[in-house]
């Protein structure tokens, strides 16, 4: 981008130091020369977290409320809907899951709308580790990744060995992405070194699989905790930080997403590492999804506007995205039965 002098509308010719508007002024500047600090001790980790600014909850909530008033219309809406579809991790995490259910889900993931082949595939299907191999076989040859929730999802209440075994099996069965949970008990009791070390250990056994670290923000409760947990996960090597398991009453919220996006932005600016964000749980409507995309657009910008770095963990969201997409094309709503259940 060419540098240009911005003089607005000045009536007098000025000799004062005007400032050039540079591309940096529009951007999150990613410092590729910087590095992620090596963490040697819990004390060191604590001292890094102590440099983080607090979050004012009233201000954070006011910011997302304002962004929620953005009116997304016409071609912007169409682009946003397609982008959101491509960012979905189509999820089933039930005790009643069967190979049949997973086959159905994978089929939908690859071709969300049989009526319209221009609809993109979703990013991934997300299942329990024992169904990874089956999902892998159905999705063979497609662009859709297999994500597995591991580490004694959702509570994470198991020994580290059991958690690592869980991850190893999922990876061995062909998982491309591992969604782990942090030890919230350890975090809330102040044992942040343990939280960090567990993530590092899981990252090691992930191999080439991408690691998403679930903070379970509904159990961390405060935005300050969300910011701290985000940094612990990123320092420990997370490829993604994820809000929720979807298994506790409070799942993803827009202020939590804002705080996590601010964390990945600041992390990229200080370390050069780009970490993705996944919001999961309770996102059911296209309207909600578009509001999240607006927050991404105006907080972290273009780099993150891709399925490689932003995801929606959801099940029923996909059909609403499809319905709104068709409504944009045809100008009228279509019967819900026009869309397959899963």
């Amino acid at each position, binding site marked *: 981008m060419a540098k*240009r002098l*911005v*003089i*607005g*509308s*000045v*009536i*007098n010719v*000025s*000799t*004062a*130091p*005007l*400032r050039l*508007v540079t*591309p*940096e*002024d*529009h*951007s*999150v*500047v*990613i410092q*590729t020369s910087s590095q992620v600090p090596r963490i040697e001790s819990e004390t060191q980790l604590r001292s890094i977290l102590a440099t983080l*600014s*607090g*979050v*004012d909850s*009233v*201000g*954070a909530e*006011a*910011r997302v409320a304002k962004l929620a*008033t*953005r*009116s*997304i*219309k*016409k071609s*912007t*809406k169409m*682009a*946003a809907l397609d982008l959101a579809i491509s960012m979905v991790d189509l999820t089933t995490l039930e005790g009643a899951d069967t190979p049949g259910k997973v086959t159905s889900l994978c089929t939908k993931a690859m071709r969300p709308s049989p009526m319209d082949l221009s609809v993109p595939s979703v990013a991934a299907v997300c299942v329990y580790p024992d169904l990874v191999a089956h999902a892998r076989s159905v999705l063979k040859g497609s662009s859709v990744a297999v994500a597995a929730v591991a580490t004694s999802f959702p509570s994470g209440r198991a020994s580290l060995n059991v958690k690592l075994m869980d991850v190893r099996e999922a990876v061995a069965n062909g998982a491309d992405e591992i969604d782990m949970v942090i030890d919230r008990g350890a975090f809330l009791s102040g044992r942040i070194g343990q939280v960090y070390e567990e993530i590092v250990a899981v990252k090691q056994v992930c191999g080439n699989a991408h690691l998403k670290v679930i903070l379970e923000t509904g159990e961390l409760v405060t935005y300050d905790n969300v910011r701290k947990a985000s940094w612990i996960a990123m320092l420990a090597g997370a*490829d993604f930080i994820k809000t929720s398991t979807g298994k506790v009453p409070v799942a993803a919220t827009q202020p939590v997403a804002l705080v996590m996006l*601010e964390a990945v*932005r600041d992390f990229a600016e200080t370390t*050069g*590492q*780009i*970490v993705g964000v996944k919001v999961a749980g309770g996102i059911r409507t296209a309207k909600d999804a578009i509001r999240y*995309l*607006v927050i991404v*657009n*105006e*907080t*972290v*910008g*273009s*780099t*993150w506007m891709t399925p490689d770095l932003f995801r929606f963990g959801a099940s029923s969201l996909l059909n609403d995205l499809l319905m709104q997409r068709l409504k944009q094309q045809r100008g009228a709503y279509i019967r819900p039965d026009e869309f397959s259940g899963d």
Partner: protein
Amino acid sequence: MTENNLPNSKLGSLQYDPAPESAAIAKLKSSYGLFINGKFTDPSKHEQFETINPATEKRLATISQGSTSDIDKAVKAARKAYDNVWSKTTGAERAKYLYRIARIIQERSRELAVVETLDNGKPIRESRDVDVPLAAAHFFYYAGWADKLEHAGFGNAPKPIGVAGQIIPWNFPLMMAAWKLAPALAAGNTCVLKPAETTPLSALLLGEILQQAGLPDGVVNIVTGDGVTGSALVDHPGVDKIAFTGSTGVGRLIQQRVATSHKRLTLELGGKGANIVYEDAPIDEMIEGIIDGIFFNQGHVCCAGSRLLVQESIADDVLRRLVRRVEQLRVGDPMDKNTDIGAINSADQLKRIKELVAYGEQEGATRYTSSCELPKKGFWFAPTVFADVSQSHRIAREEIFGPVLSVLTFRTPEEAITKANNTNYGLACGVWSEKGSRTLWTAERLRAGVVWANTYNKFDPTSPFGGTRESGFGREGGKHGLEAYLNV
């Protein structure tokens, strides 16, 4: 996932298609008379002027210029209504009218928001989400007080003053009308309201709403016009009280004019609000707060946080984030629901902003101006931040009343207080810190009528608002706001 030579991440890369609100909702008439004694009447001298849309410079409607004799008619109508009707109406009855007005404002909120944005140039998001809801909220709030005045702390049976002459500015036309009318009516006064010359439309629409609410004739009279009209109202011997919101210069003249009369006076004047940022402030919310503090309503806000005092240890980081955020502001068509910054209200105001900005440059401050494109027609000024500003610069001392922020630094809390208080004004300040004790220590020492902590430009009818020193006296809002309209 690190790769070399990663490109910067461009904020706002997803462009939003225009999402304009419909101007037809305004249902504007071609011309408007004066609202006197419950009816819209022609001005006695048949003088008229035009009100324009500052975003397009197109004519919106023809407005009547109220003359001295029109003011006389309005004051007489208000006096008659006071003597015969309103002073004999019980508090509970007055409350019913106020509730009714509040509800009609809510019912017609979309229309009011559109009219306000067309006439003033402010973004529709703000008129829709701030101005109109707050106007309704003030009527609701003071409706509650109307039958409880003896519990307001002003004696057993506080009496109204009589006829109130109220002169309001162009920056929040409807909201200022509500701030003036609601407490006056609740306390039992009758009113003559003079809206600003450049923004009369929403007050005239409010006149229609008063008719719709069945408010007795003459209780509120609305006389449009310029400074001559306002001057006639100030000088009219039948007025018992003047309430003025506007510039300090005009406020000073009004105070001189009423000095030897029986008239009571409250003034809400200019400001040069200091927004004090300590190094432990919640940074992301603080940046948003600075933006809201100075760019809300294009900076046409008397309590705007137009001086940013930032602790030197974090000044570079704050400035970098601030400039980035300024670049992101969406400047343009005020009717677009996604617009953050609309048009400057008038050519005169734009001229004043440009003059002061030119001074800022000549005095050696570093100017950062958004590279946004400005529309060809209309009055526009791109959001601007001046860094390296000193206390002795004009842009640190004078109210610019536009989207221009002056950034100064300080080293210690004592220095912050000294700099914040080193002004003739005293309307509003902000304090940003995560440390409650420091916030309270700071707030205690600031000479300002309003101090916000970790927020800025938040208004609520339950909270008193007003200034000290050259920012005026008297309070609007809350229980305190009743005092201005009671004989206490």
